[in-house]
């Protein structure tokens, strides 16, 4: 595999999750990622020495994804879809547990969809994509303080939108 492809493979997972959470399932996240990877290639030569690659690449991905959301989003609502629980060789969840887990994902996913997009982008970058605060700021082009406040407000809002108790492996009791 050539070097640029290798480099992209290292960051493919976060890039695809980022595009998915920014676009929602209605948007075409794959196209956004693909376009971003092509743009990044042609942007390499002008890139400032010494900067980190991942936030730079993910910022291009986020911009592409937001462009798609803007063009499609006024018509389509925001929704995320999640993979079903499938046993992958390990212990399969009981049917009841699988139903509960799927229900929990739908509930949290719907609450996430109910956030204003600016808060949702920050919450998604931090907790679904797994970026830290500084990376989130770089990727979304926001000051760090804004990332912090939007994440806090987004989480607080999610708690308001969610039932008082989310069942996570039976440890949800306060």
């Amino acid at each position, binding site marked *: 595999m050539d*070097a640029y492809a290798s480099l992209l493979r290292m960051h493919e997972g976060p890039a695809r*999750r980022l595009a998915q959470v920014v676009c929602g399932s209605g948007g075409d996240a794959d196209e956004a990622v693909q376009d971003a990877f092509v743009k990044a*290639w042609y942007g390499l*030569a*002008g890139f400032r020495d010494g900067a980190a690659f991942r936030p730079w690449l993910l910022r291009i991905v986020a911009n592409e994804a937001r462009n798609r959301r803007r063009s499609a989003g006024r018509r389509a609502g925001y929704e995320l879809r999640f993979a079903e629980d499938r046993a992958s060789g390990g212990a399969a969840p009981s049917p009841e547990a699988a139903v509960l887990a799927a229900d929990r994902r739908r509930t949290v996913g719907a609450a996430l969809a109910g956030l204003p997009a600016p808060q949702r982008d920050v919450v998604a970058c931090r907790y679904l994509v797994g970026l830290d605060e500084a990376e989130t700021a770089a990727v979304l082009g926001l000051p760090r303080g804004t990332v912090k406040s939007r994440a806090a407000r987004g989480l607080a809002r999610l708690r308001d939108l969610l039932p008082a108790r989310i069942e996570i492996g039976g440890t949800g009791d306060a």
Partner: protein
Amino acid sequence: MPEPRDDLVLALDELGERLDISPGDPVAAAIARIRATPTPRRTDSAPWRPGRRGRRVLVAAAAVLLVGLGATLVAPASRHAVARWLGIGSVTVTYAEDVPAAAGRTYDLGAPVSLTEAEARAAAAGWSLAAPAAAGDPARAFVGRPAGAVNLVWAPMAERPEMADSGIGLLLTAMPGTTDAGGMSKQATGGTTVQLVRVGDHAAYWIEGEPHEVVMTDRNGDVVHESARLAGNTLVWTEGDVTYRLESALDRDEAIELASTLRPLA
């Protein structure tokens, strides 16, 4: 007043893992599109020229790494950038005009210690010493070259030939810390090739060919010239916060296979 934060964050984390990602391959699609696009005109105002006197250290690892794409596809600045981003842990690879004549002739592996002592020192410094399980128990352990590192040595065997009359069949350097300040660079002459490969899920460099000098910086950022080190083929990768360098006369695939058996010692 503690917030019930963990449950929500856990739930969001689970959502991230379960996002329904399409089975498409945007990396392959993007590479195909780039290949299909006519080569853009070079716009760099000071094209790279070999042979210029003065700064003779050429950042050529990228050129090697990019051979597969065709060097004309990308301007030198891009090559430089890709090479830098492909930096693994704190390791950088550069090509140099010359390496000291002593390179690859003598070894300074640090102070000899028992394997138990080497493990204890690593544990005391907050990291776990690991070695390729498939290589069996190392014959000797050394510490302190570079500072904080452990060198493990295996004797030559039929399946791991001796490196350059060294009496060594396999040399593993485990170096904790991948901070910007610490690390090592390799300087190689033009007869050396550098490839980006993988050890399990970890990106790695495979360096093969002529003897190359190894210049390291210790954890304090001080340069340690290891100009009298090894002449074997080298695999460099980082797992956790430890950088490993496996030197041997093995070929690439053998070395990768061996490296992928890395396990904590005892």
